[in-house]
Every structure is written in C-alpha cells, then in structure tokens.
C-alpha cells in the first residue's frame, strides 16, 4: 500500500482529530467512536493516525508486543523468562489493527495453529487480531454492522485488558490492552447501547457544508491520489511537529494536575446533564487532562473542559436515544451555563 494520507493534511473535522489525539496521548480514555456521514474521511483519519504515532519499544520476539518497561503488564511468555536475563528491545510501530467485517472468531481471539498442528502435531496457539492490537489501536469500520457475538467478545476484552482463550484444548491468556476506535454511519443502524457506553469519546462527523472547505478536501485528496509520495513529503514537517507534540504531551501527562474546582465543575456538569454512572465524569477529566498535556499547561482548566466535554458526554446523556441529534446541543447549553459563553 502507498503511504497513508497524512493526519495533518485532513481538512476540518477538528473534533475527530482532537478526540483521536487525546486517545493517543492517554489510551486510558477508552476509545473513540466516530459516527457520521459517508465519505467524511473517518477511515482515512484512523489510518493516518497509525502513521503519525511515534514508534514504541517492545520486547524482541514477543508476540504480544510487551512493553519492556512495564513488567506488570507482561504476557506469560515474557514473565516466564529466567530472571536476570537481559531483555532485547526493538522499536516497532504502534499497531493499528483493522477488524474487517467478515472476520471469524478464531482470527479475532486467536486459535490453535492449524498448520503446526496438522503438519507436526504440535499444539500451539496462534494469536489473533486482539494480540496484534495490544498496546495499540483496534479499528472497527462499520462498527454497527459487526456481528453480535464478536461485539460481545470485544466488550469483554476491552473492559478487562486481557484476552482469555479457552478452546480446542488450549488455555491461553494474554494482555490485550487497546484503544477501540469504531466508525459507522447511523443510517445503517444504531449501535448497541452497551457498545456505545464502552467508548470514551464519541464524535459526530458531518460533511463540510462550506464550499471552500469542500473544494480543499477534493483538491487535497486528488493531489494525494495522483502522487502520494510527493503529497506526504509536503506534510512531513507538519507531521513531525504533531508527532513531537504527542511525545511531549505523553511525557508531560503525569505532571498535569486537576484542581479540585475543575473536578467539582465536571461533577456538576455531568449531574446537570444526567449522564449515567461515573464513567462520563472520569472520561471528561482524563480527556481534559490529555488536552492540557498537549497544550503544555500545568493544570487542567476550563478551556480544555469546554473543548472535550461534547465528545466525552454526548453519548452518555440519559435519553431518549431518539434525541441524538440534540445531545450535542444539550451538552453545549450546559457548558454555556457552567463556564459562561465562549
């Protein structure tokens, strides 16, 4: 495949980019759902993110890409290493794994390696997509068309961060911590509420409605398709700058403080909107902290809260799911009430 379309070359769609970057800075935010019109570059943005992210260190030879610096999260194979041996490290790109429609369960969770079993009579585990996505992103295009039994599987693994395989006489567990990124078109059907809730941030994407933006989108896309290399080169410095800012933000993230006043405001905001459970509050604060880290400020402030609140809360309003179109408006109204108009 040719070089993917650069992230920084995506025209508009600021909220989608903001949410994806926040999830890249702090994976614990818990995934991004991108729902909206056809042909708005949802898939493009996710693939672009893969190319944008700085490479990470992984234990050499580990099939799950364990982090050498985090022994607590190691897989069984890494744990089983004799103590004292030095661990070889390699630089790998952050995995952004596609979960294609039509995938079968054995390839998603992993299964008995048929080749080795048939040819050599060896009982070996062949990891699936969830193993590949460990420490990275798992992308489901058309998430609303995914088969229910796969959705159930994903929900379970995404919640626990661990994939437990019990099949064909195999008993394997391995870490599977990934950021779930889903996209879809509401015209094709709604997403199950349980899955909806599992996403930290939710973004509505709309086709741009002003002509200059539309022209710019078509022009860039056209230039890219005619000569991907030259186009990617044109945005190399922008990409590098963005990449540096992600690295810097990740480093800065632990130092960002969340003042009590901000916490209280977040709680009040969620209460006034009637969001279900604590997840909304938690996500809001975490995402705002990621933005603060990116902005390079020492403490989370209103600015970050205001920017990310719609994405963090719009899919959690106690509803009337019919009122989806209005949920953004409701969040914004509450924001104006609490933070004063922008």
């Amino acid at each position: 495949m040719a070089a993917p379309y650069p992230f920084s070359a995506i025209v508009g769609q600021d909220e989608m980019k903001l949410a994806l970057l926040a999830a890249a800075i702090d994976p614990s935010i818990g995934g991004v759902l991108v729902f909206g019109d056809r042909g708005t570059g949802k898939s493009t943005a996710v693939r672009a993110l893969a190319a944008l992210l700085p490479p990470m260190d992984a234990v050499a030879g580990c099939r799950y890409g364990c982090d050498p610096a985090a022994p607590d999260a190691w897989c069984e194979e890494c744990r089983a290493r004799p103590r004292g041996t030095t661990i070889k490290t390699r630089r790998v790109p952050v995995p952004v794994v596609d979960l294609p429609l039509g995938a079968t369960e054995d390839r998603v969770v992993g299964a008995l390696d048929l080749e080795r079993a048939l040819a050599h009579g060896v009982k070996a585990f062949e990891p699936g997509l969830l193993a590949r996505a460990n420490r990275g992103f798992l992308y489901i295009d058309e998430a609303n068309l995914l088969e229910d039994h796969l959705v159930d599987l994903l929900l379970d693994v995404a919640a626990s961060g661990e994939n437990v395989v019990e099949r064909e006489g195999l008993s394997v567990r391995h870490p599977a911590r990934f950021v779930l990124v889903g996209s879809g078109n509401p015209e094709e059907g709604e997403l199950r509420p349980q899955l909806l809730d599992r996403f930290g941030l939710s973004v509505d994407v709309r086709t741009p409605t002003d002509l200059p933006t539309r022209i710019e989108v078509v022009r860039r896309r056209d230039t890219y398709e005619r000569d991907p290399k030259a186009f990617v080169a044109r945005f190399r410095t922008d990409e590098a700058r963005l990449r540096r800012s992600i690295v810097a933000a990740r480093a800065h993230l632990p130092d960002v403080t969340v003042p009590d006043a901000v916490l209280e405001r977040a709680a009040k905001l969620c209460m006034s909107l009637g969001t279900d459970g604590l997840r909304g509050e938690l996500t809001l604060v975490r995402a705002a902290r990621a933005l603060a880290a990116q902005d390079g400020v020492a403490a989370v402030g209103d600015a970050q809260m205001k920017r990310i609140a719609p994405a963090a809360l719009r899919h959690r309003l106690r509803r009337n799911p019919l009122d989806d179109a209005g949920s953004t408006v409701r969040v914004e109204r509450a924001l104006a009430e609490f933070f004063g108009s922008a």
Partner: protein
Amino acid sequence: MTPGPAAPSAPTVWRDAAHAAALLAVDPHGLGGAWLRAPAGDVRERWLAALRRLLPEGTPWRRVPLGIPDARLLGGMDLAATLASGRPVAQQGLLADADNGVVLLPMAERLAPGTAARLAAVLDRGEVVLARDGFAFDAPARVAAIVLDEGADDDERPPAALVDRVAFCVDLTALSLRDVGGEEITPSAARVAQARALLPDVRAPGDIVDALCAAAWALGIVSLRVPAHALRAARAAAALAGRRDVAQEDAALAARLVLAPRATRIPASEDGADADESPPESSAEATDSPPHDDPAGADRIPDELVLAAVHALLPPQVLALARDAARWRRRSASGGRAGHAQASALRGRPVGVARGEPGRGTRLAVVETLRAAAPWQRLRDGGRGRVQVRKDDFRIARFRQHTTTTTVFVVDASGSSAAHRLAEAKGAVELLLAECYVRRDRVALIAFRGTGSELVLPPTRSLARAKRGLAGLPGGGGTPLAAGLDAARALADALARRGESPTIVLLTDGRANVARDGAHSRERAAADAQAAARAIRAAGVAAIVIDTSPQPQPQARDLAAAMDARYLPLPHADAAMLSRALALAS
C-alpha cells in the same frame, strides 16, 4: 410547478450511457463502477457488452451471486487442498480473483447491508483484508463494481453505501432494444487503451476542480465522493480526447454523467419558481445555507462557465433526475433490509460450534473440525499425507436464528385525531421507539388520513430516521381506517413471510369515515374497517389498539375485538403512561 420536465430522449440517454461505459473503461477502479438501473434483458446486456469490449483482453469479469458466503467473497480455507496436502491451504475469494477487473452485482437492490459494507471496504482500500478460518492476509482487489439494479419501484434501491462509491448512475429503464441498436458511438477499444496510458499524465487545472465542487454543491449533492468522482471522470474524458489538460468540455461531460443523476435540487439562479424544491432531507443538510448565498465561496469560484454549462446541459433532465434522486434519497433513508431474518435454520448469526455430526438441519464447521482432528494426526498416521478425520472430530456450526421483531405503528393522522391527539400519539411512538431501540427491534410507521394510507417509514432500526419520519407527519382530513389497516396487514404479511414477527400497534379513535373505495360514508367506512380488522385477526398478527379519543369509544373497542387485539383506552393519558401501558401489554 409547471408541467413535468420532458424526459431526455432515448438516443441521448443511450449516448450518455455509452460515454459512461467508455470513461469507466479508462479508469475502472478509480471511478469505482456504475449503478446500472435497468431490467434484466437485452438493453442491459448491450451496455455490459460495450463496457466489456472496451476493457483490455482478459480483464476479470465476475458475477457476485446475491447470497454469497464470506468464504467465497473474501476468501478462506480451501478444503480440498487442505485435506489433500495435510496442511492448511488458503483460497482467495471472488473479489481478489477479480483484481484489476469488474464485479457484477445482480439484483443489488436485494443485497444485504453486511455484504454491501464488505464490498464498500474493498472498493475503498483496493484490497481484501482477510481474517478468517485461521488465515490473515491482504490480497489486492482493485475492482470496479457494476451495481445492477432491477428495482421496479422506488422502494427498492441498492444499499446507499455502494451507490455512493460508484461514479456513474446509468438509467436504461426507459430504453427498448430499438433505441440502442445501429450506430456505434463508443470509441474503439484501441482509443480507450491509449487513453488509459495517457491518464496518469492528465492534469486538472484548479479552476476545474473548484467548478466541479461548486456544481455538485449547487445541485445539492452532499457526499464529497461525488465531486471527487466527477473530477476523475473529467480526467478520463480528457484522456479519451487525447488531451493532457482537462478542458471545459470534459468537466461538462463529467458533470452531466456523474453529478446530474444525483442532483437533489436545482441551482436556483435560473428557476426561482423552483425555490420550494425540497432541499436534501437528512438532518445533516437541514441547516445548510444555500451554497450560492455563501459570500465566502462566491468570490473565489471562477466557475460561472462550468455552472453555465451544467445549466445548459441539465435543465431538461435534471428536473426529472433530481426528483427521482430525491425520492430515492427518501427511500435510501429507510435502509429497509437491515434486519432480514434468515429463512432457514442453517443460517443466521453463527454463535460458535458444538461437537456433533452434520446431518439433518446442521452444517459441518469445517475449520473447527480440522482443528479438532489436528492434534491427533501423528497418532493416526504418523503425520504424513492426508488428514485423518474421525467421527469424534466432527464439529457442527451453531447458528442463532434471530427472529427480528418489527413493530408496525399505524397512526391515525386524520382531522378528528389530529386536533388533539396526534402530538400525543407522536410522543408515545417516540417513547416506544426508544424501547424498541433497547431491544434491537425494528419499527415501521404507517399513517392514514384523507383518502388513503402511507408507509411513512419502512421497517428500520434507525431511530434518527424514525424520528424524522414522525416529525414530518402531517395531520388532517378524513379517517380511512380500513385503508390503514389493510396497509398494516400487507406489511405484516410481508414481514412474516421473511420470518420476522410483526406486531401491529394501532393508535386511533376508531371513528372511520372514509370507506375503502374513498367514499365518505360512516356506515360503509365502519363496515370496511371491521372487515379489515377481521382480516388481521385471520392473518394471526399480534395487535394492540390504543384508543386515543378523549373518552373511551365503543368503536375502538369493537375494532380491537374484531382484531383480537389488546384494547387500551387511554383518555387523557400522556405519552409516558401510554408507553408504560404498552410495555405491560406486550
């Protein structure tokens, strides 16, 4: 509005269709393909033959049968080879086989959304991403899709996800063989081959790009894929004419072939009379300001020429096409087939496997069977040669037959109801929709008023759509209760035939005053309504009647009895109470 626009003449239609075939042959994958609306027959075959003739010798040309399983469409395990060689052998699917070629999708109007989504992903990426049966690989599949649409009426349209990804929309419905014979208008295959070679060098000046975008926007086309396709079509047209720069006429041809059939409104500069032409309906566009009012865009677009060309080319066709497109849009907004229940117990969602022998009513899970057999191969024959499968190894696939429940709301929107209860009924339906949403049920909405009934919302799972349909529901007029009930029964029948379980929820005050034949007669209207209600009972459809009159009425109660339905009198009930009552009843 003044008399309908004259339909374009048959020779024009055929010439345009031939142009589209030629452009598609120049850049098949780039243009995505074509949406070909025509009944199966000689005219359609003639067009397909013209396209095929223009493609290079040996270009793959594959038909995708309607119910194709993933293993054949995307790829999977090659069972014969696996058993013969004793090691897993992958088999690529039809889409990968058709790499650099064309796939035909017959009866695309009946294509399942899931299959459409798989095809759409492949069209986008130019490759098949496979993760099935123990295999994971990417296979190139740069295909063009010919979406063959035999839909007889506007209720049957191919999935929007596919239609959005193909450049051309060719409608041959009105043509007869007489219209397409004789003169050869397509360029020669050699010309097309030259154009294909020239294509990478063709440049499109910026103002052409701007103009095509502006024209698309002026025609009310929302998707950005459409102007992008138009641009590619213009480039192919230039290549075909031997030009290295896209000229005005190439852009005009592209606008005519790609943009015009998808128009949803007419550029206002020329026909102020058409100001009431309905704007695109989806909520996304509801807030759009008309693009030509956009001052920011106006001063930077040097597009008068192309827009003028579009105008000059379009008016006779575009009115017809635009209206058609708008109808289609409404229909596409229904996505009806989303929940087709499977007809056989062998189908449905796979929910895993179980040990057991294939036979009556079960199907062998091949890969799982091999997995079960795999560990024992050494013991059985020393691991050489053929795979030994024993009875114990058999695994059968288990499917969950998901019977979809579809709630058919039949809403009395007549004057008598509308005055005081329609808003309330709407509210109740919204609340019930919310419950259906949680249960993953589908809903449909039929409204009756005046002299007939209307299927406002074909069965769908999309609430956004349901809400839109409901909000736009007008009230007033007579009460053709029988017509509403007949429509509900017909829909329920159709759903039942597809293996779904329909429930009818009728909201009315029961006071029919329009008979089946449209006559305004209370007695006959009531008799017809009774007959229609009994027909529902005979069909065995579960039903609920919600009496929306201020005081409980005997008419509605009688109707419920005739339908063998639950009767819920709800004087002064608010929407929440209605909803609770229904939850208890069903």
